[in-house]
């Protein structure tokens, strides 16, 4: 096991239905602080399940999951929500922006849910919108933005609470090639600034270009670990 692991999975199994094959089977895995790890595999291999478990969006059937030094598999729902708000940022393939909130309100939301002061949250949101190059769209609604702009909003939202861990589920999957490359570069910059990143992707090029290590899953099991 790696020293200074930000994520540690130990013998994690996730079964959705009794009798059905597990989505993840006895998986053990570490991700170090500051690392970019890509998780790849065919559909149904357990990539999204792994991401959900690490994000605390779901619970394992067995095994332990430690993120940022905390065992999250045994936390209550409230504690898990607090954990997500403070330690994890999530970027979804289809952005999952809230259509009825402005760009700025979307970005502010996790900070407000975490109880950040109004002034601090606004300052941080402003800083991130500027860094993502979408500050002029702060009062627009997501429906008026392009795919790339929406994903930048989603990244800003994921980063607003300065989480130790950024989880990205097919972050370029809904974007054209050029926009995907731009988003990839943005993620690379974040990692260069010390951000730990787990990328779930189908795209070998994305994994190869940006990840220090690629974890391949097959039928819920670790099939291979490939360093860059």
């Amino acid at each position, binding site marked *: 096991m790696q020293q200074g692991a930000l994520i540690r999975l130990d013998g994690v199994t996730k079964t959705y239905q009794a009798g059905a094959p597990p989505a993840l089977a006895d998986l053990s895995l570490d991700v170090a602080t500051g690392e970019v790890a890509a998780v790849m595999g065919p559909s149904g291999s357990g990539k999204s399940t792994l991401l959900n478990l690490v994000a605390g969006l779901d619970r394992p059937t067995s095994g332990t999951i430690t993120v940022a030094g905390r065992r999250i598999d045994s936390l209550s729902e409230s504690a898990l929500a607090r954990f997500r708000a403070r330690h994890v940022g999530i970027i979804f393939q289809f952005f999952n922006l809230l*259509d*009825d909130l*402005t760009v700025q309100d979307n970005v502010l939301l996790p900070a407000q849910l975490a109880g950040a002061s109004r002034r601090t949250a606004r300052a941080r949101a402003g800083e991130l919108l500027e860094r993502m190059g979408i500050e002029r769209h702060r009062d627009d609604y997501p429906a008026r933005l392009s795919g790339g702009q929406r994903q930048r909003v989603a990244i800003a939202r994921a980063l607003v609470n300065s989480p130790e861990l950024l989880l990205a589920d097919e972050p370029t999957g809904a974007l054209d090639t050029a926009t995907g490359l731009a988003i990839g570069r943005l993620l690379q910059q974040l990692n260069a600034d010390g951000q730990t990143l787990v990328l779930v992707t189908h795209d070998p090029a994305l994994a190869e270009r940006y990840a220090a290590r690629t974890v391949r899953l097959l039928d819920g099991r670790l099939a291979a670990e490939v360093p860059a």
Partner: protein
Amino acid sequence: MSWPGSWINWLGPVRTATGGVLRHKVQAVAIGLVVLVSTASATLGLTLLAASNTPFQHAFGAQDGAHVTVTVNAARASAAELAATRHLGGVTAAAGPFAESVVQTQFQGQPFGQMTLAGRGSPAGPVDDVVLNAGHWADGPGQVVLDGSPGGGGPGLGSTITVTGVPGTPVLTVVGFGNSVTSTADGWVTPGEITRLQPPGGPPSAQMLYRFSHAASYGEVRADVTEVSTALPPGAVTGVASWLAAENQATSNGAIMEPFVLAFALIGLAMAVLIVGNVVSGAVVAGYQRIGVLKSVGLTPAQVVVAYLSRVGWPALAGCLAGVVAGNLLAIPVLNNSAGAYGVGSQQVPWWASVVAPAGMFALVLLAGFGPALRAGRLSAAEAIAAGRAPRAGRGYAAHRLAARLRVPRPAGLGLAAPFARPARTAVTLAAIAFGATAVIFAFGLNSSLSRAAASQTLSATIPVQVEQFGPGIGPGQMPSAAQDAAVTAALRAQPGTRHEVAVYGNEVKVAGLAGNVFARAFGGDAAWTGYGIIAGRWYDAPGEVDVNTAFLDQSGLAVGDTVTVSTGTAQVTVRIAGEVFAPSSEPRMFGSTQTLPGLATPANLREYDVALRPGVSAAGYVQAVNAALGGRSPWQATAQHDGGKFYSIASGLVGLLAIMVAVAAGLGVLNTVLMTTRDRVHDLGVFKALGMRPGQVLTMVVCWIAGPAVVAAAIAAPAAIALNTATVHAMAGTAHTGIPASFTQVFPPSRLALLSLAAVAIAVAGALLPASWAARARPAVALHAE
């Protein structure tokens, strides 16, 4: 291909598409539940409307009520002579003779009044079928069945009643309660018991109950009575009671009830229609995405419409059937209450209510679903998928923008802005909450108004004790002596607890301009403290002034401040009307001092003594002390007055029951709306949770979805309930031939109204809590993928 085959082929895909009913359990249960509650409410509403429609006439027919109850001196008419009257020309049915006795009674050591007890072996018979409300019929010595219902501070099953003025002062145990539609007796014992209950020296008495072929008017009833009287020996008939008098009393009570029963029934029906329309149309809209998929695989618009109507139709049908059963079950306690208030034995759910309510509700479901289903059928597949995914884009954005700037916790702000995304659904939900809250506030107000009316009618608060003539020392036709009257005044003045006491005289007087007699009450001293409710003007405070009731003013055409000439029999005086008092009656009444109405203050006219007590003095203790001072043989007995009449307590009970039902129905309407909204926004809930929204914050947000509409509903419900209460109380008073003091409707001081308005918030929060808890508990990963 033959037509049936084509039809089956056409329905095949519809059946497949509709197969989703069982897979959408939550939605099916929600539709079924709301239709169940609404059908039950509608059944009950229609039943109440039917029950308020000539209840006496229905009960009179069902119970073969007696057109005439004839009391005979059994010593003057033989059993054979009485039996022969059964075959008189106009008699269609007869029952009796039943031996009867008029006795003085006590309950729990206090005078319980004069009772007519009849000896009947069975409650049934060709005339006057007594409906047994509780317990069993008297089947042995020492048992009595009372006319009425148990409770209300009076005797209950197992209570004992002591018969005074009869050798051995027999004790009767109450074994049942029954209802004779024309109140042919106050109680029934076994036929053999009557002999033991006859006061010494009195002639044996019996009652005959008749139904006649013609008894619709007082004239016809008089002719019927003459026919019976002439068939019997002279002097045999000692008393006659006509069904028309009982009808008058019952119709008057029923008419008083009708306004509020009607108000609750209409609220219940309107709310049921709103909630069902809301839930069903919401369910169809929620299925748009699936409709889009079905169209993309080839379903025709007509098949889509049929598929979606049947998808809401099956759970609705189940809800209708369960609802009509629930409505019938719920109607039992409500009808027991209303039957008591109407003074009839029992009431049933009319068969047509059990057909019209479910059929109407089912038709409403189909109608509510038809519009959205038709729209779905016309949409292209892509449009249907888009329309089903989210509320129309742009709606509620401004509200969210504003809410983001509010200084409230963010989940609360998100919740407060949410209703603007679905304005139609919000408006209907708001209306349902407003109806429920109006019913609750109205119920509290009506209860207060009825309490004030009851207190003002019985004057129990201001006259807690009365001394009346029904002690053991008086027999029929006897009058207390002057010494016995003086003893009362002396006993009352000797009691340290006496604050005020006044002798009350009563007799009929003639008033110029009014046909017939006017009953006048003359007080032998200061009576301003008696506390009659003042509708207009003031209580008389000088010689030559009187107060009158509303019927007096209506029938005479006079007004407060006018003068009128009164003949008391011994004198003719001109009096000024100082005020209009609350004394409900269709007959005119006058109130004045014995000084103003000379000639009334005679021993023969002395009716009672009214007594007010000093603060802290117990009425029960005071009554005991006065009765001890008067001695066991005095014709006068002190009694403590009770809060309200039977009618008021039953009416209050009915009001409470109806309000609870309407509030529960409104809460279920909210539950379904929040449930639908939760399902609409399940993906957003997943996103919120993924971003770190805690379960408590989800709960807050979901409850706040409904909090805004609830506050608006409260703001609508409060004035609506005040207006409804005022209109209802005035309508009730109008049927009782009286005006009302303004205080009867001023029952909503601002602090109380503010508190009652919280009913809207309580209904909304109670309805929202369950789906809010489900939303709070949902796993984020499941919510994110549940779209």
